[in-house]
């Protein structure tokens, strides 16, 4: 990538260079995670709203009771003291207790990670496949009817608000699919019934998710392939006697995929947090919905926890993109 140092013909054992590269990238990721931990603490303290006021809303409470609650949650202590105990707890892997759910934040997050990964994973796979396929076809017949239609539709869907599209789909399919949740409570507990019921619940959230995000993969792939299609080495491939589809399949698409793969991974971290709206509209019990619920408090420990997890996903996805690109592109390996 662009930040890789340009070294002029340095003869050095490959493994040592690789080790240094990986160590650099991992070190950078760890530093980002540390900064995120600090930011997570400060950011939510700057939010409007007071947790104790929200907890006691609608109930007659005395000033003494409020003070007692604040003391119980440690909110009366100076900010710097709260910060140090937050860091100390974090170092031990303790994310604190949720104010609203009254269970450890770590447990709550662990419970919600599965559904989010299921939804986001399925959605991303479908969006990437659809986007790459449409992008390739668009670039191949650039300026043609297919290209114009596909690019127009993708851009249109991309600009649609997620929650609005979700509600629209719900009203159009009226009752064909469940309107929320992950399973019905009365489904038999055996694996197959549960799986079929979950799949049934997933249809609308996944369609909504895919519809809104596939455009970026399509446009990136289209742009990347359009650029690759003017590469002089494709003329060599044609002169060798390859058919046009072989030129595309063997030389143009694989090369165009390189920058696209990186972008897919960079986006991967973001889509986890991007699921917030979809999960909220369809009451999907994942991390996104949990974040939304935590924001209402504000449930500070829970917010810190989800923020950490979502931000860590971005950092890890970036790290994966950096390392993967090195594996895929021999030119990066050399530098």
């Amino acid at each position, binding site marked *: 990538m662009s930040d890789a140092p340009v*070294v*002029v*013909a*340095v*003869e*050095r054992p490959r493994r040592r260079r690789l080790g240094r590269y990986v160590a650099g990238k991992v070190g950078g990721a760890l530093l980002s995670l540390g900064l995120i931990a600090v930011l997570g603490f400060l950011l939510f303290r700057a939010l409007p709203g007071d947790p104790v006021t929200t907890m006691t809303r609608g109930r007659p409470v005395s000033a003494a009771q409020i003070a007692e609650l604040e003391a119980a949650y440690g909110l009366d202590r100076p900010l710097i003291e709260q910060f140090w105990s937050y860091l100390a707890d974090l170092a031990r892997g303790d994310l604190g207790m949720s104010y609203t759910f009254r269970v450890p934040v770590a447990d709550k997050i662990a419970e919600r990670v599965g559904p989010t990964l299921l939804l986001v994973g399925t959605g991303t796979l479908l969006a990437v496949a659809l986007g790459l396929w449409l992008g390739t076809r668009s670039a191949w017949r650039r300026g043609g009817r297919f290209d114009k239609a596909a690019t127009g539709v993708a851009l249109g869907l991309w600009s649609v608000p997620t929650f609005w599209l979700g509600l629209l789909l719900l009203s159009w399919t009226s009752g064909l699919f469940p309107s929320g949740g992950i399973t019905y409570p009365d489904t038999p507990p055996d694996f197959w019934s549960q799986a079929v019921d979950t799949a049934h619940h997933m249809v609308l959230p996944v369609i909504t998710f895919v519809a809104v995000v596939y455009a970026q993969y399509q446009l990136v792939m289209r742009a990347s392939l359009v650029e690759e299609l003017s*590469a*002089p*080495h494709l*003329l*060599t*491939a*044609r*002169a*060798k*006697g*390859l*058919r046009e589809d*072989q030129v595309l399949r*063997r*030389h143009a698409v*694989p*090369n165009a995929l*390189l920058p696209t793969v990186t972008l897919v991974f960079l986006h991967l971290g973001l889509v986890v947090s991007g699921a917030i709206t979809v999960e909220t509209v369809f009451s999907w019990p994942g991390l996104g919905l949990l974040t939304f619920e935590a924001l209402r408090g504000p449930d500070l420990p829970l917010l810190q926890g989800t923020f950490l997890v979502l931000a860590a996903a971005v950092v890890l996805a970036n790290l994966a993109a950096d390392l993967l690109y090195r594996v895929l*592109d*021999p*030119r990066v390996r*050399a530098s």
Partner: protein
Amino acid sequence: MSLLRVRDLHVRYPSEHAVRGVDLDVEAGETLGLAGESGCGKSTVALSLLRLLPRTAAVSGEISVDGEDVTTLNWGRLRALRWARASVVFQGAMHALNPVRRVGEQIAEPIRLHDPTVTAAQARARVADLLAQVELPAERARAYPHELSGGQKQRVMIAMALACGPRLIVADEPTTALDVVVQAQVLDLLSGVVAERGIGMLLISHDLAVLARVCGRLAVMDAGRVVESGPTGRVVAEPAHPRTRALVAAFPAVGEPRHRRAPATTGEPAPAGVDRVGGELLRVEGLRVRFGDTVAVDGADLDVRAGEIVALVGQSGSGKTTLARAVLGLVRPDGGRVLLDGRAVPARGRGLREHRRQVQWVPQDPTSALNPRHRVADAVAEGLRVHRVPGDHAALAAAALAEAELRPPERYLPALPHELSGGQRQRVVIAAALALAPRLLVADEPVASLDASVRGEILALLLRLRARLGLAALVITHDLGVAWTVADRVVVLRAGRVVESGPVERVLTDPAQAYTRSLLAAIPRARWASRPT
């Protein structure tokens, strides 16, 4: 029957009639040279032979390759003909190879494509065989293009072209961007293959000396037409057409007294100006520059006197560009010193800025050196702004353009780079350097990317600037002809060390070192002893 027969070939692009009635013949065992400047249509001819032109090109006329009429073949038969019976060595192997595939795979690809019965193991053996023919070790098959040098990439390209045993090879500028020694090796390799296999070759180049070294017959193209053709000796010795004469004159013969300080120019003849050489201006002492574990410059000494033109010659990778960058203060030396007027160049701060003003750089390729969205006026005045030179920048820029002989300057000031020719762009770059009233120009291959007819003009400009302004220059080049044409002294660099230095007349006619002799021997020497001027 000829391997290649082209009759009355016309190629029309929507905006341009690029090829206007070309006839060519190549027989088995023969190499035909096709010469011409950029834009004369020679590459279009090459691509039309295998119908590789874009869809927008309309081709008419007769093209027959190895007895097959290419213009009427259906796509299936055409694909079968491509590479198996006629292959292409493309210009710039850097871009003609897929950057992310191993070169072995790329050589094997046409073998298995044209004969599906070949197994992967057989293909690997054939690749090793082909690499041996182009004198590359078999394990290079596992390399990626960027891991190879320019000459090695060109060898891979040639191995690839031979993969299916073609009857005809079309080589489009196969040695452009290679240094003289590697160029000589690649040309020998190509002519060896033609002689050994009894196949035909169409060799395309803008460099008549390259063609003269290899080809039995020459055809010279200009504006889409063949303006002159015949046996190489006759065409080169008695060029009939003005275009041929210009091409012959553009590549001076080293050692020929009439070409000494006499670049081919249609303007006023270049004055010698040797009498203006003064005291020492620049001195480089024991300079060492390292990149990681690679020593690029290894204890080089050099000096340039005021008003003197010194040529720094050497092969690619000899460290000449790094040395130049150290002189400009762009690279900090790891050892040794660079002195201007006897004072060491400061490593940072105002002193370094002042040094950079006095020593100006003229880069190799004016097209990539100029910002395509900056007008000439901005490009020339940029240095004035950066160095906060007092005065009217517009007037200074106009004066610099006039100095670089773009007259009247008002006509060029509002132009964008793409509206100018290659030679005009190089003059703009030189004007940008002159605007700062430098004392030394460092020109890195100042004419390598220019057409034959403008090379002489730019070299003559350097000589006139020296005569008018007493401007000293360090000219970096791999082309000894350039050194012979403009320089007073020459410094030969090899692997970061100075091998030999001295007056041009002595070093280039009676070299003391074997290495200098081998550089001189590698120059493609046309067989012209005397020629009309």
